[in-house]
């Protein structure tokens, strides 16, 4: 029986009269990637923001590792074991790659009594940051300033920062967006590896990647789930084919 790490029930988010997300439920299991696809404006990013606490849901509930986290602040949800990356690269541009990841790892460190020590002298934090950088394949770029590395590397950095917080659940909002072919291949490999220990929600437009990676697939249109199941089940769904007609080849 796979372990459910995150469970969302009947999430709705209204902005005025518009329901950006309407009655969406989904589960994330450890060892599985749950892909969320849909045309632009379908509410995928809003859904991600609801799960990460960036936005409070209008109605519905979210449980993270059995604890209810509905309406909690992003920092508390993060500390409860959820890590996310952003669709639009969201890093500390003026800092080095290393400092970006170290700062992420520091968020999980416990050293209240040694707060005047140099931040870079904490062994456990450094090792955690080092592992995340290695895993994301950025070891050679660690001393580069984040604002000067390539777009693809910045996407890798996003992932490295998220991993440095040692999350159980990963929400990845279009990690492949704007990546070149080889960079994208590397990222797919990385996700394949991360899948073992994490529960992952993947919002992605790249259908090759989605079908290569996902165990579960949820299709959203206009804030609603129109189909959910294994990739094979969804591929055969008539409603999905109608929604995607002329959009993308499933």
């Amino acid at each position: 029986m796979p372990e459910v790490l995150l469970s969302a029930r009947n999430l709705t988010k209204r902005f005025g009269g518009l329901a950006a997300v309407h009655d969406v439920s989904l589960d994330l299991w450890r060892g599985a990637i749950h892909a969320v696809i849909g045309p632009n404006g379908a509410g995928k990013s809003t859904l991600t923001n609801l799960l990460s606490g960036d936005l409070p849901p209008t109605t519905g509930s979210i449980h993270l590792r059995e604890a209810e986290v509905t309406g909690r602040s992003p920092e508390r949800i993060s500390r409860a074991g959820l890590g996310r990356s952003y669709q639009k690269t969201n890093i500390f541009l003026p800092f080095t790659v290393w400092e970006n990841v170290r700062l992420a790892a520091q968020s999980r460190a416990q050293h209240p009594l040694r707060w005047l020590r140099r931040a870079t002298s904490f062994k456990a934090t450094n090792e955690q940051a080092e592992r995340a950088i290695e895993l994301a394949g950025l070891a050679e770029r660690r001393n580069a300033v984040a604002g000067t590395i390539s777009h693809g590397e910045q996407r890798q950095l996003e992932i490295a920062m998220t991993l440095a917080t040692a999350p159980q659940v990963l929400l990845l909002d279009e990690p492949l967006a704007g990546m070149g072919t080889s960079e994208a291949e590397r990222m797919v490999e990385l996700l394949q590896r991360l899948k073992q220990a994490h529960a992952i929600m993947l919002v992605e437009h790249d259908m090759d990647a989605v079908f290569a990676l996902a165990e579960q697939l949820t299709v959203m249109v206009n804030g609603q789930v129109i189909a959910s199941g294994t990739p094979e089940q969804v591929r055969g769904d008539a409603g999905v084919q109608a929604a995607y007609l002329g959009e993308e080849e499933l």
Partner: protein
Amino acid sequence: MSAAQSHLEVLPRSLQVLLALGFIALAAFPFVGSDFYASMVARMMILAIFAMSLDLLQGVTGLVSLGHAAFFGVGGYMLSMVSSDSAAVSLWWTLPVALLASGLFALVIGFFVVRTRGIYFIMVTMAFAQMLFYLVFDNKDLEVLGTSLRLGGSDGMYINFKPDAGLFDLEDRKVFYFFTLACLVLVYAFLRRLLWSPFGRVLAGIRVNEHRMRALGYGTFGYKLAAFTLAGALAGLAGYLWGAQTGFVNPELMGFHMSAHAIMMVILGGMGNFAGAIIGAFAFEYLLHLFKDLPDIGDFRVGKHWQLWMGLFIVLVVAFAPRGLLGAVERILRRKPGAGDA
């Protein structure tokens, strides 16, 4: 350009040498300069402590406070309120009390203001400072919980004796000068260390991208409140020294101008590294005297309009040396040795 560079968080060797020379000059000054200039320099050092405390918010954390003088004033007023008209009070309990009081004010005010950002933060910090300003300005005495607090109203209050330190005599101008210099060096060393501590790195992260810090699990509210409280307490230290040096406190210490001057000092010197704040405070005070003493041209009272010249000067610095005077000096020092191989 990275923030580490644009903020000169890492001070290059050349600047470190320059700062060490500056320290030696400050230590030697009372032996070569007159008493008048020595107390003027002591005043600059006090303002430098005040500017550094603001830099922790403005340059490091990215919180531009237009009400920082409130805590400077609280420090000074604490000394005047606990002072007696007939004898000196001990430094060893009045200074901690002043620090605690200004820190406590900052904690309470910070609890409300650090929830806001940008322009709103500027406005609410100013509003709180104005409230304290008028509380003191309008009340000669204030009844609080059955006891009457002497505030002095718009006239201010005199502090007849410098605090009694026991081991050394602060009434001696030279001793007071060196005590102030010691405070300056201690505060600078403490803040520089703090800058590179885990806490300091979090504050820098908040300045650069607070949203991301929260997504990484940092409770940024607590960090900002801690920074605000610490900055308030250090401003209180400066205010206490100011009150002790001048023997007088008045509501102007908490006033809008005082807060605005502190911001200008930090910008003038260069933000985010504390050394710039010191340079800025010295430069600001020096220029202020320079501009005030400008000779009249015909009927035009040039010196009276010192604010105009100061404003122009700061505009020029911001336009041509966005990293402040410290950044400009760094650029000159960097260019010299490399001039041949460019």
